[in-house]
Every structure is written in C-alpha cells, then in structure tokens.
C-alpha cells in the first residue's frame, strides 16, 4: 500500500509528466497526444515507484525491463526517462527532429534507457516474452513489463505472444493494456471489437487484473499482485481515458496523432496547473 504522501507525490509527478508531453508535442508539432496522456499514470507508477532501474547505469543487467509495445506513446516514455535522469530534459525539445536521439518511435540504439525498438504494433509483446525467457535463463531477478494499446491487441501477433507467455509460464512478465477505448479510426469496439479483453487473457491462461488506469493506488496494488503471481504471466487491463488530464482532449479519437497548437497548449497547461 502506498501512503497518502506517496500517492500525492506520484500524482504530482504524473501531472508534471503530462506537461512535459504536451510541451514536447507542441514543439515537435508531430506525434501522438491522446495515447501518451492515457498511459502516463501507469508509466509514472512503473518508473517512479515500481521498477528496479538505475538511470546512471542504463545497461545494468539486473534492471527491470520496460517494453513500450504501443510505441507511438514514445513522448510519455521520453518524459519518464528524462524525468528519471537518463538524459537532460532539454533534449525533449528535439523530439522527431533530424539527428535527435528521440525518434518518432522508441529506438534502443539511440535513447538511453530504451530497452527495445518498438513502433510496429504487436511486436513489442513478443520481444517482452523473449526478454522474460532470457531473464529466467540467466537467473536474473528482473521483471519484464510491457504496455500495449487496446487497438494494438487487434494484431494477431499479440495473441501468438500471449499464448507463448502462458505456455512457458513466464511469471516474470506483466503486460498492461492501456484500454482507452479509442484508436485512430474511431472507437475500438466500432473499428474491430476484440473485447472483452479480460476473459480472453484468462482463456489464454494468464493471471488477469482490471483496474482504473488513472488510480495510482490501484495501479500500484495491481503491480503488487502481478509480482506475487510467479507461475503465470499477468495482464493488467487498465481502464483509461484517451487524452486524460486535459478535458478538451479527453475521449477524442481525433487527438490520436495530433499535437496541441499554441492555443491548446496554453489552455492545457493552465488546466494542469490548476489541478
């Protein structure tokens, strides 16, 4: 259980990271706003409270691994990595610029702290499965976390990976599904209804938890429960809001891949400052 003080601090961090994401996307004028904001609370708990990692030693072998399978939420990842000290926050202004180490989608060879390259949906979870296998073979204490989109799970490869993680009993693997209900063409259930997700992961012999993906305490508790399960991989279905934290971005598929303009940034920062 997190203390009230810890929760307040993590909520503050998440708010700060939302500001960084919006500024970053406003500067680059290119990138994915809605899905970065929906994922921030989960990623805040992972990077600031849960994962064993050392920003001064990104190659630490025993670190926990994080695979952003929904690679288009790269701004959220970059905000976390800069916030934790993997690289200067100043670098965030170079997002998506020629020569920047902050590519449009995560690149392990360019950005300190990025564990694998992702961006083509459905592929990150397979790599997370492989990482969990390698971790177990090497008898390392690391856990492997991967974050997927709820549109991403329409990819058949996700279910191939799901099948294999259960088959190999990867208790050190935790997949979190950022269930914001929207994808670029509209509502996920309208574009291609793959739900209900919980029963599907359960049917694939996973340990399944469902939480409010913006409730810091609930996220942390779910991660505790995931860690306590050592025989099966855990899926945490995190119910989230696309664009969370900025009212006029919330629940809108139209902000999937659209950055804030000057006016929207100003209003968004004001709204986040008031909270």
């Amino acid at each position, binding site marked *: 259980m997190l203390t009230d003080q810890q929760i307040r601090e993590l909520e503050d961090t998440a708010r700060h990271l939302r500001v960084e994401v919006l500024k970053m996307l406003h500067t680059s004028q290119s990138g994915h706003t809605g899905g970065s904001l929906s994922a921030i609370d989960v990623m805040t708990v992972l990077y600031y409270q849960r994962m064993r990692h050392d920003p001064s030693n990104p190659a630490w072998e025993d670190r926990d691994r994080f695979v952003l399978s929904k690679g288009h939420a790269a701004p959220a990842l970059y905000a976390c990595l800069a916030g934790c000290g993997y690289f200067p926050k100043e670098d965030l202004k170079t997002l998506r610029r020629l020569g920047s180490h902050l590519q449009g989608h995560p690149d392990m060879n360019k950005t300190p702290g990025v564990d694998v390259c992702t961006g083509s949906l459905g592929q990150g979870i397979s790599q997370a*499965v*492989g*990482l969990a*296998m*390698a971790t177990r*073979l*090497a008898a390392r204490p690391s856990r492997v976390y991967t974050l997927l989109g709820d549109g991403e799970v329409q990819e058949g490869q996700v279910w*191939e990976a799901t099948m294999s993680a259960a088959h190999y009993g990867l208790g050190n693997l935790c997949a979190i599904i950022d269930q914001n209900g929207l994808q670029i063409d509209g509502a996920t259930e309208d574009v291609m209804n793959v739900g209900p997700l919980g029963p599907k992961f359960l049917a694939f012999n996973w340990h399944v938890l469902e939480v409010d993906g913006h409730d810091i305490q609930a996220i942390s508790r779910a991660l505790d429960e995931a860690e306590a399960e050592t025989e099966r991989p855990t899926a945490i279905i995190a119910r989230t809001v696309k664009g969370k934290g900025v009212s006029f971005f919330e629940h809108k598929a139209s902000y999937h891949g659209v950055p804030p303009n000057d006016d929207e940034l100003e209003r968004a920062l004001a709204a986040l400052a008031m909270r």
Partner: protein
Amino acid sequence: MSEKIATRDVYGQTLVELGRENSKVVVLDADLSGSTKTKLFSKEFPERFFNAGIAEANMTGMAAGLAAGGMIPFASTFAVFAAGRAFEQIRQSVAYPGMNVKIVATHGGITVGEDGGSHQSVEDLAIMRSLPKMTVLCPADGPETGAAIRAAAAYKGPVYVRLGRGKVPVVFDQGCDFTIGKGVTLRDGSDLTFITTGLMTAEALLAADILAEENISARVVHLGTIKPIDIDLVLKAARETGAIVTAEEHSVIGGLGGAVCETLAEGYPVPVERVGLRDEFGQSGTAEELLVHYGLTAAHLVEAAERTLARK
C-alpha cells in the same frame, strides 16, 4: 565430389556443438524442428529450446527479445515462412535494431521438391538482401554450412542463413574456413567465370569440367555470402575473364545474379548470363526433375557460358 550431405543435418549437429561451447546459444523453431534439425539441440538442451508452435511472427519477436536479454538465438523454419511470413518482424524487431539474431532457414529453393511451389522459396535471398544491417549467407555444402553457422554465431548482429532440404555434393573440405563477406575461388580460369552460390556451385564445377574438354577455361567463384558481396573478387573475375555466368537456386531477380550485376554495372561492366528461376514460382516434382525443368544443371551452365562468351 561423390559424397552427399544435407546442409540442414550439419546445421543441427553444429547447433549442438555450439550449445555445448556457449550457454548463451538458444534455439527457436516453429513446429518444424524435425525438418530443420533443431530437434537435435532440443534433446540435449531442452531448457534452451523454445518451440513457438506454428507462429513464425512471434518466434521472430521472441528471438529478438532473447537477444536483447543477452542470448544468441538461432530461429529456424522453412525459408518461405522465415523470410516471407515473418518479414516485418525481421525488419522491425531484428534488422532495424541490429539484434544479434540468427535466422537459419532450411528448405530454400525448388529442391524442396514434392511439396510444390507454395513451399519453395525463390525470393528469400532478395528479400533479406534488401534489409539494411542484414548479413545473408548461402553455403554450398555440408562442410561449409558448419563453418558458416559458426561464423554466424561469432558475428554480432542479424544474419540470415539459407539452407536446403536434400543431400548435396560435398565441395569443401571438412574443417574449411568461412569468412563472412569473402568468396572463394574454387577453380581458376581465364575465359569466363561462374559466380555461384548454394548447391549451384557443385554444378558449376561440373560445368567447368565439361567446358575444359572444349578448351574453354572457366573460373569458379563461390559466394557463400550474398551480402555483403565480395566486390573485389567479383570485379577481379570480370577484369581477368571478361564474361560472367551467375547461378543460384532462386529467382534471377534480386538475389546473387542481381547482386553481381549491380556490382559489375558500377565497377566493371562485362557480359553476364544469370541462371536461376526466370521470375516464376516452382511446382511439385522430385528435386532432380525440378533442377532439370528450371534449367539449373551443369548442362544449362555450359549453355549459359557459351552465350556469354559469344557476347564478349
């Protein structure tokens, strides 16, 4: 050259040796371990063998993750599925990040035989060659396969190795060397050069014998590495013999023939005849029948040599 060995058999045996030497070597397969011969490894090292089931995309991604975790994964299935079905996984999860993954595809080419065109990859070398950071190997025989697999294991980065199904004549000595990026001149000659890969190298040696009886001196250069191609050796052959015949158990588009022509066009243009499949798929038949049907025999190489000599 009377002895015949299947390259996939040597692959399976070499994997077991590598497994004994290095605990980081792990192997993946997609329900074809009996055919690709990775089953030999799975029996000795069950904890380091991962059957993905019939799910090549995930197998490729898992291999990438295992590499990210410090292992040296070898992932195997038939060439049509390895390079075809899992192409985008190879692109995004293996080649783009430069992962230390070895994709060893068996059953390349038409000598798959009776299974037919659906299972005969005639395009895998072209597909894999087009990927940045990818190294592409196609050994000639059993001994060279053993050396090539060892070279792939020692090399840090993505490698695609194409092997075959059937037994092929032994060209190289046991314990031969394999240097990635270096071709081998198996026979010297001055009138033309056969530049070949895979099982076509044995045919080129036979063709050179036939041509010698007609007082035509044919050089035979084997390229066990399709990419990076041995530019120096190819240009040297062009300068010194002035005519080239390429031969591969693959489409003439984009594979060895394509690579040699690109190299010559930029470096030293001479007449070239490409022997291979002429932009067509294979079909059912025995391996021997198919090699004759598609023009991949020593006799066809002799004809191609005569055509290219006439253009000198």
